[in-house]
Protein backbone atom coordinates (compact mmCIF):
# COMPACT_ATOMS: atom_id res chain seq x y z
CA UNK A 1 0.00 0.00 0.00
CA UNK A 2 1.39 3.46 -0.85
CA UNK A 3 1.70 6.21 1.75
CA UNK A 4 -0.87 8.25 -0.18
CA UNK A 5 -3.42 5.47 0.18
CA UNK A 6 -2.91 5.56 3.94
CA UNK A 7 -2.94 9.30 4.51
CA UNK A 8 -6.66 9.87 5.00
CA UNK A 9 -8.91 10.28 8.09
CA UNK A 10 -10.24 6.70 8.09
CA UNK A 11 -6.70 5.25 8.08
CA UNK A 12 -5.66 7.47 10.99
CA UNK A 13 -8.85 6.49 12.84
CA UNK A 14 -7.95 2.81 12.28
CA UNK A 15 -4.36 3.38 13.46
CA UNK A 16 -5.48 5.32 16.56
CA UNK A 17 -8.02 2.59 17.44
CA UNK A 18 -5.32 -0.07 17.17
CA UNK A 19 -2.65 1.84 19.11
CA UNK A 20 -5.10 2.95 21.83
CA UNK A 21 -6.34 -0.65 22.17
CA UNK A 22 -2.80 -1.98 22.57
CA UNK A 23 -1.83 0.68 25.12
CA UNK A 24 -5.04 0.18 27.12
CA UNK A 25 -4.48 -3.61 27.17
CA UNK A 26 -0.91 -3.00 28.41
CA UNK A 27 -2.17 -0.55 31.08
CA UNK A 28 -4.91 -2.83 32.50
CA UNK A 29 -2.62 -5.13 34.57
CA UNK A 30 -1.04 -2.06 36.26
CA UNK A 31 -4.51 -0.57 36.87
CA UNK A 32 -5.74 -3.78 38.51
CA UNK A 33 -2.55 -4.02 40.57
CA UNK A 34 -2.99 -0.42 41.80
CA UNK A 35 -6.63 -1.06 42.75
CA UNK A 36 -5.74 -4.26 44.54
CA UNK A 37 -3.48 -2.26 46.91
CA UNK A 38 -6.77 -1.24 48.56
CA UNK A 39 -7.29 -4.88 49.55
CA UNK A 40 -4.28 -4.75 51.86
CA UNK A 41 -5.44 -1.59 53.60
CA UNK A 42 -6.32 2.08 53.19
CA UNK A 43 -2.77 3.21 54.09
CA UNK A 44 -1.25 1.46 51.06
CA UNK A 45 -3.91 2.91 48.75
CA UNK A 46 -3.32 6.39 50.20
CA UNK A 47 0.45 6.03 49.63
CA UNK A 48 -0.25 5.09 46.02
CA UNK A 49 -2.72 8.00 45.57
CA UNK A 50 -0.07 10.39 46.97
CA UNK A 51 2.36 9.13 44.35
CA UNK A 52 -0.20 9.86 41.58
CA UNK A 53 -0.29 13.60 42.48
CA UNK A 54 2.94 14.30 40.56
CA UNK A 55 2.51 16.43 37.41
CA UNK A 56 4.06 13.70 35.24
CA UNK A 57 1.61 11.08 36.55
CA UNK A 58 -1.36 13.45 36.05
CA UNK A 59 -0.17 14.02 32.45
CA UNK A 60 0.05 10.25 31.88
CA UNK A 61 -3.42 9.77 33.41
CA UNK A 62 -4.83 12.48 31.14
CA UNK A 63 -3.27 10.65 28.18
CA UNK A 64 -4.87 7.40 29.34
CA UNK A 65 -8.30 9.04 29.72
CA UNK A 66 -7.96 10.44 26.18
CA UNK A 67 -6.91 6.98 24.90
CA UNK A 68 -9.91 5.36 26.62
CA UNK A 69 -12.30 7.98 25.22
CA UNK A 70 -10.67 7.64 21.77
CA UNK A 71 -11.04 3.85 21.85
CA UNK A 72 -14.68 4.26 22.93
CA UNK A 73 -15.61 6.82 20.27
CA UNK A 74 -13.55 5.02 17.59
CA UNK A 75 -15.31 1.77 18.54
CA UNK A 76 -18.73 3.40 18.31
CA UNK A 77 -17.74 4.69 14.87
CA UNK A 78 -16.76 1.13 13.82
CA UNK A 79 -20.01 -0.36 15.15
CA UNK A 80 -21.97 2.32 13.26
CA UNK A 81 -20.03 1.61 10.05
CA UNK A 82 -20.57 -2.15 10.33
CA UNK A 83 -24.17 -2.24 11.51
CA UNK A 84 -25.75 0.96 10.16
CA UNK A 85 -26.07 1.97 6.53
CA UNK A 86 -24.51 5.43 6.85
CA UNK A 87 -21.60 5.48 4.39
CA UNK A 88 -21.46 9.24 3.71
CA UNK A 89 -20.47 10.62 7.07
CA UNK A 90 -17.17 8.82 7.70
CA UNK A 91 -15.06 11.97 7.92
CA UNK A 92 -17.58 13.61 10.24
CA UNK A 93 -17.55 10.51 12.46
CA UNK A 94 -13.73 10.63 12.66
CA UNK A 95 -13.82 14.33 13.57
CA UNK A 96 -16.58 13.80 16.12
CA UNK A 97 -14.64 10.90 17.74
CA UNK A 98 -11.48 12.98 18.04
CA UNK A 99 -13.35 16.01 19.39
CA UNK A 100 -15.22 14.07 22.08
CA UNK A 101 -12.02 12.22 23.15
CA UNK A 102 -10.07 15.45 23.62
CA UNK A 103 -13.00 17.06 25.46
CA UNK A 104 -13.16 14.15 27.93
CA UNK A 105 -9.39 14.39 28.49
CA UNK A 106 -9.66 18.13 29.13
CA UNK A 107 -12.54 17.56 31.56
CA UNK A 108 -10.37 15.08 33.48
CA UNK A 109 -7.36 17.39 33.51
CA UNK A 110 -9.31 20.44 34.71
CA UNK A 111 -10.77 18.42 37.59
CA UNK A 112 -7.53 16.62 38.47
CA UNK A 113 -5.42 19.78 38.77
Amino acid at each position, binding site marked *: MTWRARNHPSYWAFALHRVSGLLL*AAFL*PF*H*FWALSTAITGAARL*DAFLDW*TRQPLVISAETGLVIL*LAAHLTG*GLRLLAL*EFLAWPNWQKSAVGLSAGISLAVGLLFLL*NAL
Partner: protein
Amino acid sequence: MTARAEASLWIVQRATAVVLALAVLVHLATIVYAVRTGLSAVSVLARTQGNPWWLGFYLVFVLAAALHAGVGLRTIIREMTPWRGPSLDIAAVCASLFLLVAGWRAAIGLFA
Protein backbone atom coordinates in the same frame (compact mmCIF):
# COMPACT_ATOMS: atom_id res chain seq x y z
CA MET B 1 -9.25 -22.37 13.84
CA THR B 2 -12.37 -23.08 11.75
CA ALA B 3 -14.24 -20.35 9.88
CA ARG B 4 -17.15 -20.91 12.27
CA ALA B 5 -14.92 -20.33 15.30
CA GLU B 6 -13.45 -17.18 13.68
CA ALA B 7 -17.00 -15.92 13.09
CA SER B 8 -17.81 -16.60 16.75
CA LEU B 9 -14.80 -14.50 17.82
CA TRP B 10 -16.00 -11.67 15.54
CA ILE B 11 -19.41 -11.79 17.26
CA VAL B 12 -17.75 -11.90 20.73
CA GLN B 13 -15.70 -8.80 19.81
CA ARG B 14 -18.80 -6.84 18.69
CA ALA B 15 -21.01 -8.01 21.58
CA THR B 16 -18.35 -7.10 24.16
CA ALA B 17 -17.84 -3.75 22.35
CA VAL B 18 -21.52 -2.89 22.91
CA VAL B 19 -21.28 -3.79 26.63
CA LEU B 20 -17.99 -1.86 26.92
CA ALA B 21 -19.44 1.23 25.20
CA LEU B 22 -21.96 1.60 28.02
CA ALA B 23 -19.51 0.54 30.75
CA VAL B 24 -16.74 2.91 29.61
CA LEU B 25 -19.19 5.84 29.51
CA VAL B 26 -20.15 5.12 33.13
CA HIS B 27 -16.46 4.58 34.03
CA LEU B 28 -15.36 7.89 32.47
CA ALA B 29 -18.15 9.75 34.29
CA THR B 30 -17.07 8.04 37.56
CA ILE B 31 -13.41 8.99 36.96
CA VAL B 32 -14.26 12.68 36.45
CA TYR B 33 -16.60 12.64 39.48
CA ALA B 34 -13.97 10.91 41.65
CA VAL B 35 -11.09 13.27 40.78
CA ARG B 36 -13.42 16.29 41.19
CA THR B 37 -14.31 15.31 44.74
CA GLY B 38 -10.65 14.53 45.59
CA LEU B 39 -9.07 11.09 45.66
CA SER B 40 -8.28 9.53 49.03
CA ALA B 41 -8.46 5.96 50.29
CA VAL B 42 -11.30 6.93 52.66
CA SER B 43 -13.43 8.52 49.89
CA VAL B 44 -12.72 5.68 47.44
CA LEU B 45 -13.53 2.93 49.96
CA ALA B 46 -16.62 4.78 51.27
CA ARG B 47 -17.99 4.89 47.73
CA THR B 48 -17.12 1.31 46.84
CA GLN B 49 -17.23 -1.05 49.83
CA GLY B 50 -20.34 -3.14 50.40
CA ASN B 51 -21.97 -1.97 47.20
CA PRO B 52 -23.38 -5.00 45.34
CA TRP B 53 -24.64 -2.97 42.33
CA TRP B 54 -21.21 -1.50 41.59
CA LEU B 55 -19.62 -4.91 42.23
CA GLY B 56 -21.98 -6.48 39.64
CA PHE B 57 -21.28 -3.65 37.20
CA TYR B 58 -17.49 -4.03 37.48
CA LEU B 59 -17.59 -7.86 37.30
CA VAL B 60 -19.44 -7.56 33.96
CA PHE B 61 -17.15 -4.69 32.85
CA VAL B 62 -13.99 -6.73 33.59
CA LEU B 63 -15.39 -9.85 31.86
CA ALA B 64 -16.21 -7.84 28.71
CA ALA B 65 -12.82 -6.04 28.78
CA ALA B 66 -10.86 -9.29 29.30
CA LEU B 67 -12.61 -11.01 26.37
CA HIS B 68 -12.35 -7.89 24.16
CA ALA B 69 -8.62 -7.47 24.89
CA GLY B 70 -7.81 -11.16 24.26
CA VAL B 71 -9.65 -11.28 20.94
CA GLY B 72 -8.29 -7.86 19.92
CA LEU B 73 -4.66 -8.77 20.71
CA ARG B 74 -5.03 -12.03 18.75
CA THR B 75 -6.42 -10.10 15.74
CA ILE B 76 -3.59 -7.53 15.81
CA ILE B 77 -0.91 -10.24 16.12
CA ARG B 78 -2.42 -12.24 13.22
CA GLU B 79 -2.58 -9.16 11.00
CA MET B 80 0.84 -7.72 11.83
CA THR B 81 3.09 -10.73 12.56
CA PRO B 82 3.56 -14.25 11.08
CA TRP B 83 2.35 -15.84 14.38
CA ARG B 84 -0.65 -18.16 13.74
CA GLY B 85 -2.15 -21.42 14.96
CA PRO B 86 -3.02 -23.04 18.29
CA SER B 87 -0.10 -21.47 20.20
CA LEU B 88 -1.47 -17.99 19.44
CA ASP B 89 -5.01 -19.07 20.41
CA ILE B 90 -3.72 -20.44 23.73
CA ALA B 91 -1.72 -17.23 24.36
CA ALA B 92 -4.85 -15.13 23.70
CA VAL B 93 -6.90 -17.28 26.10
CA CYS B 94 -4.14 -16.89 28.74
CA ALA B 95 -4.13 -13.09 28.26
CA SER B 96 -7.93 -12.97 28.71
CA LEU B 97 -7.82 -15.25 31.77
CA PHE B 98 -5.03 -13.19 33.36
CA LEU B 99 -6.98 -9.93 32.92
CA LEU B 100 -10.18 -11.61 34.15
CA VAL B 101 -8.61 -12.95 37.36
CA ALA B 102 -6.64 -9.73 38.09
CA GLY B 103 -9.69 -7.54 37.38
CA TRP B 104 -12.16 -9.61 39.36
CA ARG B 105 -9.71 -9.80 42.27
CA ALA B 106 -9.43 -5.99 42.31
CA ALA B 107 -13.22 -5.50 41.92
CA ILE B 108 -14.05 -7.96 44.71
CA GLY B 109 -11.40 -6.36 46.94
CA LEU B 110 -12.83 -2.88 46.37
CA PHE B 111 -16.57 -3.49 46.26
CA ALA B 112 -17.40 -6.69 48.18
